[in-house]
């Protein structure tokens, strides 16, 4: 995944990715060791950057655009090298 081309910051992508995995805000906060309000802040900022009406739509757009990887399909690190 070409991170430099992504409009999302690393934190925003991480929060969206956990949301795509079905984590609640509370669970995401626990996983990233941040407060729930920080998670909400990152989510709101990601939703705004993706021009989405809400969290569900933001996750759908991020998956569609390849901005976040779902874990079962994470390509190997060298996946881009030979292309």
């Amino acid at each position, binding site marked *: 995944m070409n991170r430099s081309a992504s409009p999302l910051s690393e934190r925003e992508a991480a929060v969206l990715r956990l949301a795509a995995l079905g984590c609640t805000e509370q669970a995401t906060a626990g996983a990233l060791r941040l407060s729930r309000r920080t998670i909400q802040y990152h989510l709101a900022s990601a939703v705004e950057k993706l021009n*989405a009406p*809400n*969290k*569900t739509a933001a996750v759908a757009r991020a998956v*569609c655009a390849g901005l976040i990887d779902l874990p*079962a399909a994470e390509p190997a690190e060298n996946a*881009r090298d030979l292309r």
Partner: protein
Amino acid sequence: MPQTAPQLLAGAVAWRPATPASSETAERARLTPGGPLQDALCDLVKEFGFQGAVYAHLGHAVRALRESGPVTPLRFVASSVFDRRLYGETGALEFDPMITDAVRSNTPVAWSTAADPRLTDAQRQLHARLRGRGIQAGVIAAVQDYAAGPAFLNFYSAFTGEAERCLQERAAQLVFAAGVFHERAKLLALPTRQAARPLLTSREIDCLRLAAMGLTAQETAGVLEVTVRTVEFHLKNAAEKFGASNKVRAVALAVSRGLIQL
């Protein structure tokens, strides 16, 4: 008198790395009428000196390999009916120990059926089936197709050394051949019927699509002219079919598998 490996394999294997004399036997052993893709696959098998091969285009279903049971490939080509049986009719893609790791790699990966204490019973059974066909080892060359989802070519070999030598000497050619074959297969092979079978009802897909567009259950109910409870019912069923814990997860999986498009 003990039989040599080629004699043992003659009846059961699609292609030997053929000497001209044995190519007729190989032709007969193939049994199924060969389309252009099967012919191309047999040519690759011959060129790289293997005994057989299968090609599978997993598509975005690969994301579900560890999440929700067997995965039916989008496209499937085997060099012979025997190879087809190994995968197509057993649903081996679900637990094949080689595939889950290999499809995520961009360099070819060698595998062997040698005993490995980490294998599960199902994986041991698959390896036993492969050994029963005289297959000891092989090489998987994956194609990382980000748009259409990954695919792979799995070559079988009767000798561990052959597979490893091919990997060392001709890895780049294998990757190239796999990529070219994948592009041809996308043009020539229709998606398999099983893969095309809908996982979700059209109403469930409607609800997921509207959710992915950002509509609430209340708004979705208005659009579809049903009650909120019905929308919640459809979304719950869709999430259950995916093994997803909530709506957001179900939407993410539906998008990643191409069931809904934005």
